């Protein structure tokens, strides 16, 4: 597949992406003198790099962590300045041109789901088409073709949040393919997937690339599986210089041992061995209290239900874990395996007291149960223990290691829990330094841990978990994304904890970890509660578009100027409540919808407090006159009540469609806002994770208003940092699909104005009319 670039452009697809007669071909890529130094770094990541890739050539890019592989990939996509700032020099051209059409370069990122922009998979694939202004009628066929091409046979209205990791990567691929790319870039696309799923994704990539004749550049540090799929292997060293380049098997034959030394996973090389780590014992640690083989913790018949909330729709309950039994024994390593979505992380959290199981019980061995855990017949489950007591027994290495950071420096972070437990001393300090040295973090001991790379943060999380000698170590996918060297260090550290007598529980996809486990528990996806086949009847308000609902609720704005007395306000309030009640009616066939009134009352609850506040102030001022106070209270209620009825029916994505197409608000800010609103649930999850981290590290503020307030501020800071990280990842994914230049976009979602919309606005105007009438007739 190394034929030269076609001289004519007949085989290409025009900017509107109309399918052309000839199959699209790959682009020839030329990198000349590329240098990149992010601001604040003394040395450039890439320095004067040259690389030529022929049209249709398939290249695997390998190198140790920090060698600039991902940087080079972003440069090829023209996205280096999208989420970072620095000095960029040199040139990247596609078929001799430096400014390609939108979508000519497709990019799939490592983290499945990082680039999701919409609330349904069909809409998500259509995102790129919207950006280049493809007509709405032309979208469904092309979206369906792209989904079929990657083998994602789900209905287009499925939610992306329900996808497994492999499905999410296929979705990202479909989103790139629908733009008819000529160069496909994959940034560690399978690093976070289990072996079978990864093989499935690779097969899809191989199929697509061959059929379309695409130029392909893949970054991976596990070479197995990709080698047969590429024509060429390019190896970067730690300084971002190309040290080997050629046919994969030639490069391997010549450089295999040096690649292994750099930590790259090379097929045929012996499996790495865990480092033998000797740690200074921690005095008064919970590890080692129990005899080897004695159960540390046992979960019986555990079940966990999860509720997901989304703005503008009702909450949905899913079963994360059902009827699971699990015992973790002292001095043993237990591996939890199973496909993604099987509930491995959730079961681990339930056993470790990080969340409250919905059903079943968790028993902790009596000798390590703290006083607060209750003794004898009335033990308290670990999820009710105070922070310090939990931290003494349990440690947790979360999957998202960035959220695990709690200290100001790396060393500080490792010592945090020991200090919170009152275990700080010479031994603790020595032990912390041993851990940092083992995990290759010693030279970073005084660095701010938030500035570490992802892999470094993951190793730090392992060090910080083990440092105080907990009896139960929970590690969520601890080896994902590690190179051979750091794999050895991470596994060595976990095995050191096992030798000390801790029960170690890991969730993993990594066969190397399973091989070293004393027992394996394979989970299957729990069956979900059956969906009632009879559809719910939709309330009248649910049939109204979001813009009409917004306008109707804002019709109350003239009321303060119109309402003069409590009697007038009472009349208007009665009209509002009547209209709202009508809106909640759900005529027609089907099942009776639930929770309509409850939703309205829940939204009014905070309002009651506000009303009392205003009434109180009016009562004080108005000579303690009840009529004045009642007037003030009712006026405020009149402002709020319509919103309480309609807010639950406003879907942010549809509101975005209406605001852009009917009100003609600028397209890009509207899209950015709706994409961010889709992530509201993930903010919820992030908050929970930050708080859980603090709890298991022994620094959660269990009581005290000031301490809790301080903690809320600290966690809000962490939430903002996490949110901005998501924004940066999403910016890359969106710009790779042509969003940067999308000033005249089309919209996959229609924004119709129908009879119910007019009726809703009429209802809003009725409220104003009622106020005018009341003013004229009522005193």
């Amino acid at each position, binding site marked *: 597949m190394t034929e030269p670039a076609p001289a004519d452009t007949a085989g290409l697809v025009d900017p509107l992406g109309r399918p052309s007669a000839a199959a699209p071909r790959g682009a020839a890529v030329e990198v000349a003198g590329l240098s990149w130094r992010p601001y604040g770094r003394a040395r450039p990541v890439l320095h004067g790099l040259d690389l030529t890739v022929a049209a249709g050539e398939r290249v695997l890019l390998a190198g140790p962590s920090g060698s600039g592989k991902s940087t080079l990939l972003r440069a090829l996509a023209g996205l280096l300045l999208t989420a970072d700032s620095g000095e960029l020099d040199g040139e990247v051209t596609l078929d001799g041109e430096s400014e390609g059409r939108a979508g000519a370069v497709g990019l799939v990122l490592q983290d499945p789901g990082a680039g999701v922009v919409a609330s349904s998979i069909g809409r998500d694939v259509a995102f790129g088409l919207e950006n280049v202004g493809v007509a709405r009628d032309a979208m469904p066929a092309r979206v369906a073709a792209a989904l079929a091409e990657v083998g994602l046979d789900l209905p287009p209205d499925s939610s992306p949040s329900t996808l497994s990791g492999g499905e999410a990567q296929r979705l990202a691929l479909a989103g790139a393919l629908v733009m008819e790319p000529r160069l496909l870039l994959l940034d560690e696309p399978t690093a976070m997937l289990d072996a079978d799923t990864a093989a499935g994704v690779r097969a899809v990539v191989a199929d697509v690339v061959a059929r379309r004749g695409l130029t392909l550049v893949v970054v991976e540090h596990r070479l197995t599986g990709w080698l047969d799929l590429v024509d060429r292997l390019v190896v970067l060293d730690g300084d971002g210089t190309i040290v080997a380049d050629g046919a994969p098997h030639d490069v391997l034959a010549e450089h295999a041992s040096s690649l292994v030394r750099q930590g790259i996973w090379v097929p045929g090389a012996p499996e790495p061995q865990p480092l033998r780590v000797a740690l200074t014992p921690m005095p008064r640690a919970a590890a080692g209290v129990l005899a080897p083989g004695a159960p540390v913790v046992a979960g019986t018949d555990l079940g966990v239900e999860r509720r997901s909330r989304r703005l503008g729709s009702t909450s949905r309950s899913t079963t994360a874990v059902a009827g699971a039994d699990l015992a973790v024994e002292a001095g043993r390593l237990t591996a939890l395996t199973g496909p993604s979505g099987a509930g491995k992380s959730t079961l681990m959290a339930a056993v470790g007291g990080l969340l409250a199981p919905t059903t079943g019980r968790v028993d902790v061995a009596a000798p390590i149960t703290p006083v607060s855990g209750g003794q004898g017949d009335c033990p308290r489950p670990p999820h009710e223990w105070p922070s310090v007591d939990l931290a003494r027994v349990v440690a947790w290495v979360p999957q998202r290691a960035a959220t695990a950071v709690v200290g100001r420096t790396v060393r500080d972070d490792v010592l945090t829990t020991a200090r919170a437990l009152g275990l700080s001393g010479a031994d603790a300090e020595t032990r912390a330094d041993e851990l940092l040295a083992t995990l290759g973090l010693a030279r970073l001991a005084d660095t701010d841990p938030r500035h570490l790379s992802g892999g470094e943060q993951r190793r730090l999380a392992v060090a910080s978990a083990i440092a105080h000698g907990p009896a139960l170590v929970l590690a969520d996918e601890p080896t994902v994304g590690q190179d051979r060297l750091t794999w050895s260090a991470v596994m060595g550290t976990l095995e050191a904890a096992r030798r000390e007598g801790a029960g170690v529980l890991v969730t993993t996809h990594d066969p190397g970890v399973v091989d070293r486990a004393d027992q394996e528990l394979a989970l299957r996806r729990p069956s979900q509660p059956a969906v009632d086949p009879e559809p719910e009847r939709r309330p009248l308000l649910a049939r109204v578009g979001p813009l009409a609902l917004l306008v109707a609720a804002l019709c109350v704005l003239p009321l303060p100027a119109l309402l003069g007395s409590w009697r007038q306000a009472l009349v208007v309030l009665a009209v509002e409540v009547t209209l709202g009640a009508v809106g909640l009616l759900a005529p027609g066939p089907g099942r009776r919808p639930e929770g309509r009134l409850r939703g309205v009352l829940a939204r009014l609850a905070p309002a009651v407090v506000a009303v009392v506040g205003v009434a109180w102030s009016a009562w004080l001022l108005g000579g303690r006159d009840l009529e004045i106070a009642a007037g003030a209270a009712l*006026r405020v209620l009149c402002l709020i009540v319509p919103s309480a009825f309609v807010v639950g029916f406003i879907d942010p994505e549809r509101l975005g469609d209406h605001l852009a197409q009917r009100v003609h608000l600028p397209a890009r800010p509207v899209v950015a806002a709706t994409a961010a609103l889709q992530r509201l649930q993930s903010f919820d999850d992030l908050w929970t994770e930050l708080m859980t981290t603090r709890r298991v590290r022994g620094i959660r503020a269990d009581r005290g208003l000031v301490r809790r307030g301080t903690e809320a501020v600290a966690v809000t800071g962490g939430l903002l940092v996490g949110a901005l990280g998501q924004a940066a990842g999403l910016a890359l994914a969106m710009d790779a699909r042509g969003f940067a230049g999308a000033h005249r976009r089309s919209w996959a979602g229609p924004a119709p104005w129908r009879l119910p919309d007019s009726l809703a606005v009429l209802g809003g105007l009725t409220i104003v009319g009622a106020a005018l009438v009341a003013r004229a007739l009522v005193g």
Partner: protein
Amino acid sequence: MSTTITASGPLTRWRTIDLLTCAFLGVAFGVAYWAWGLAYEAPATAVSAGFPPLSALFAWPWLVAGIVGMLVIRRPGAAVFTELLAAIVSALIGTQWGLTTLVSGLVQGLGVELGFALFGYAVYSWAPLLIGGFLGGAFEAVYEWYSYWTDWGFGYKIAYLFLLGGSVAIFGSLLAVGLTKLLANAGALAAFPPGQEARERAAV
């Protein structure tokens, strides 16, 4: 801040990451605003017993989103976009003011915006912060005169305006500057002027 770095390229040309950062800040602040709305009523009502306009001393946090958005992005419209989105999010989750929160978000954002516009979006120090913060608070106060405090006398209204404007200018600016510094030092603002200032300082 010895030298001020302004946003890259033409100031009105928003990059994708500018839009998304504003949007994500807006959503995060929207959640925080909703939570503050629950916590705010009790102390605000308590101080109102003595002198009602004092409740302004608990209302200034609602303007921080717009100030942070402007300090980070440094482009025209950043304050209005961030503040308005925060208002929408808090309203959709369900605040005590319902969708009328949008009006508050809009006027607050406009006030802050005006402070920075007066300096041509080239200065991000105390002068625009104090003026923008005061205007944002003052605009909100005028809207509240109309919608909530209709029974107050003129003296109370003026006191409320100055208390709210003053507390946003001082406390709101302090919190916003602190948060922006925190984000910059955490390495979360690499693509933005405050992050570049922090990194170049560290590099020296």
